[in-house]
């Protein structure tokens, strides 16, 4: 019996005209690692949620066909019962943490399953060990880094003893080292514990060739289901779904005046020295990548550079206007339509209405969002929100643009388009700073790189994939 099976499954959300899943037939065996790829909106997340009965029980809509997990039909059993057999790790680890202590977090699911009290602590500790998070057992969840949160989220699901582990874009917030560590954990779960692992992911570099199968989705349908070599051939017409070969970075930009500069900048946040005597200049007409592990101080640098965060020591300065696009595009959604979002900054600058409207329309067109002008921003997908957030800042023609993790949740094809847009901003003369863990994107788009660790900055260099990974 398959660990997880879909038989002729179709699903349509109540508010959406088009189906999210169409005639899906898929079986996942025990001890199998399956990579799920596809563009944003192709149905990957819906498929994962359907495996646990959250679609349609939590999200609503119509489901046809049959989904079985551990032999249980999701139509007859509630997610709470299915949780013994399958566990889902969501994209944002922060949004799934419900306890203030790590051990309590790992125990939460066991308590819900009614496990004997004496068994709860040993099982929670064992799950933390399996996820490589045993050393975090005594910590509070709010002090964890992004990578640590992700491991605790996985442990919290593993504690319930599922035979199927489902992960929705688990590396989107992880630095390369943490993503490598996660991959090792997943392989260990498959090889040593015989757990079936299904990973939906846009960043396929690490997983593509170690997966047992690659399943590609398009418009709710499974279009490819094959081992990696076969999938590579079958997806040759959609190269953005394939793992990226390291690309040669473009030549360094010609020297120009700095668009922004940090001089001996220091900033302490709580007990962490987020910036420690950091000095760097960011050239106009160039794309500078800021890389480094989770918690290295990259976002603090970005905020300080744009004048959005004060410093304890040293100075930060920029020429003209600076625009910052944060990691969470949801924070940029302040209005009722996408058009108003883009127009907002221009109105604050006092741009006259006819010109303002024209510029807002042009910016939406430039980011392939003209169709969404009248849509509510919260109805857009995460990738579309990300592009809208960038458009709402670039419409103001800033001299310095800082993009914090701009490819988070963005699929391969949109990433290529984003790459062109970022280069276009630099070609127009703006200084562009990209804070990112996405090594292939950085190698494609950046002309220089700044590496950070523990709030300090290493000398600038033309980035290579090796340097970015380091």
């Amino acid at each position: 019996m398959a660990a997880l099976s879909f038989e002729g499954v179709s699903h349509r959300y109540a508010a959406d005209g088009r189906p999210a899943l169409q005639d899906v037939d898929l079986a996942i065996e025990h001890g199998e690692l399956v990579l799920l790829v596809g563009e944003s909106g192709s149905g990957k997340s819906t498929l994962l949620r359907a495996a646990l009965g959250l679609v349609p029980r939590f999200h609503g809509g119509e489901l046809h066909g049959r989904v079985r997990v551990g032999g249980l039909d999701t139509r007859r059993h509630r997610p709470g019962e299915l949780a013994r057999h399958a566990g889902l790790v969501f994209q944002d680890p922060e949004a799934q943490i419900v306890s203030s202590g790590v051990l309590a977090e790992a125990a939460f699911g066991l308590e819900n399953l009614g496990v004997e009290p004496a068994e709860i602590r040993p099982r929670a500790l064992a799950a933390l060990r399996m996820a490589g998070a045993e050393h975090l057992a005594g910590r509070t969840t709010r002090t964890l880094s992004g990578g640590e949160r992700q491991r605790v989220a996985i442990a919290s699901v593993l504690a319930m003893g599922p035979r199927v582990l489902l992960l929705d874009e688990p590396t989107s917030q992880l630095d390369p080292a943490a993503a490598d560590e996660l991959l090792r954990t997943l392989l260990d779960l498959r090889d040593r514990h015989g757990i079936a692992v299904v990973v939906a992911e846009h960043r396929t570099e690490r997983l593509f060739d170690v997966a047992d199968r690659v399943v590609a989705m398009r418009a709710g349908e499974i279009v490819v289901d094959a081992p990696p070599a076969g999938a590579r051939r079958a997806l040759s017409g959609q190269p953005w779904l394939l793992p990226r070969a390291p690309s040669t970075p473009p030549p360094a930009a010609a020297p120009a005046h700095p668009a922004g500069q940090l001089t001996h900048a220091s900033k302490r946040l709580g007990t962490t020295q987020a910036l420690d005597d950091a000095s760097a200049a960011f050239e106009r007409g160039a794309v500078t990548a800021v890389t480094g592990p989770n918690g290295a101080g990259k976002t603090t640098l970005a905020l300080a550079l744009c004048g959005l965060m004060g410093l304890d020591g040293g100075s930060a300065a920029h020429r003209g206007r600076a625009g910052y696009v944060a990691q969470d595009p949801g924070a940029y959604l302040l209005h009722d339509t996408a058009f108003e979002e883009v127009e907002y900054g221009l109105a604050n600058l006092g741009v006259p209405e006819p010109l303002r409207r024209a510029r807002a329309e042009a910016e939406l067109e430039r980011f392939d969002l003209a169709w969404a002008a009248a849509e509510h921003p919260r109805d857009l997908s995460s990738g579309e929100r990300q592009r809208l957030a960038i458009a709402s800042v670039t419409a103001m023609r800033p001299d310095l643009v800082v993009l914090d993790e701009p490819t988070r949740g963005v699929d391969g094809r949109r990433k290529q388009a984003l790459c062109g847009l970022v280069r276009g901003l630099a070609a127009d003369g703006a200084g562009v700073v990209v804070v990112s863990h996405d090594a292939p994107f950085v190698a494609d788009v950046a002309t220089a790189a700044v590496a950070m660790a523990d709030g300090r900055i290493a000398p600038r260099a033309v980035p290579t994939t090796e340097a970015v990974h380091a």
Partner: protein
Amino acid sequence: MTGAVGIAAITLDNPLWPTAAALAGGLLLTAAGPPRRIYAAFAILTGLTVFLLEPFVAVQGLTTLWRGPDIPILDTQITTEELAYGAVAGLRIAAAALAAGAFVRLADSDLLLRAVARVAPRSAMIASLTTQMLPALERDAAGVLVAARTRAAAVSRPGTAARLTGPLVGMSLERALAVAEAMEARGYAGPTRSAAPVRGLSARERVLTLLGTAALAIVLVTVATGAGDYRYFDLLGDPWTPAAIAGAAGLAVLAAAFAWVVRWRP
């Protein structure tokens, strides 16, 4: 300890008590980790507002300090007694808010959840999640402010700030839905439920419990014996009674000791 401070602030009339409670609340919040400015700002602003409004809505006291023009609804005859009562009312509110902020920052919501869950599991879960999500909501609010400022919005204007609350509520609802989905995926609201054994208190927690219990005992004894009573109207009474001095000083000293133990690193 925060409970003792809150009860003292709200129930005891002698001005020494709300003053000691406000001092104690400030000490406890200072001992808590950041972010705490938002709680302090809320406490001070609310306390000041009450202090400033009270003399204009109360019509009591015999010692007139100032008489203004007649304005409908407002009482423009300001008395010493009204000012004193307003100041104490402001201190009460500020002390309670500071204690609540310290509670949010210091309380172990998992321990609380387990304690309350024995009686009311779902209410305990809601309370725990609220405590757990407050820091996340603070970060969301900071994100919304950054998003507005980077688009040249004058966020210090009341109109702009008010407009930003809508998006913040939207983000909060999205976050609440995500947490609810994650909880359901992990079996919450299933047919059976158990609880992990509650761990024993550490040495530090035992000391803190002792200090908090002592403070609570002092406050409750004062309430029961009426030693914290005081007269504001028609003329102010004398607050410097031995019982009030000893009790209020005791609360402040115990709160200071509590804060020191919280901050102490072996």
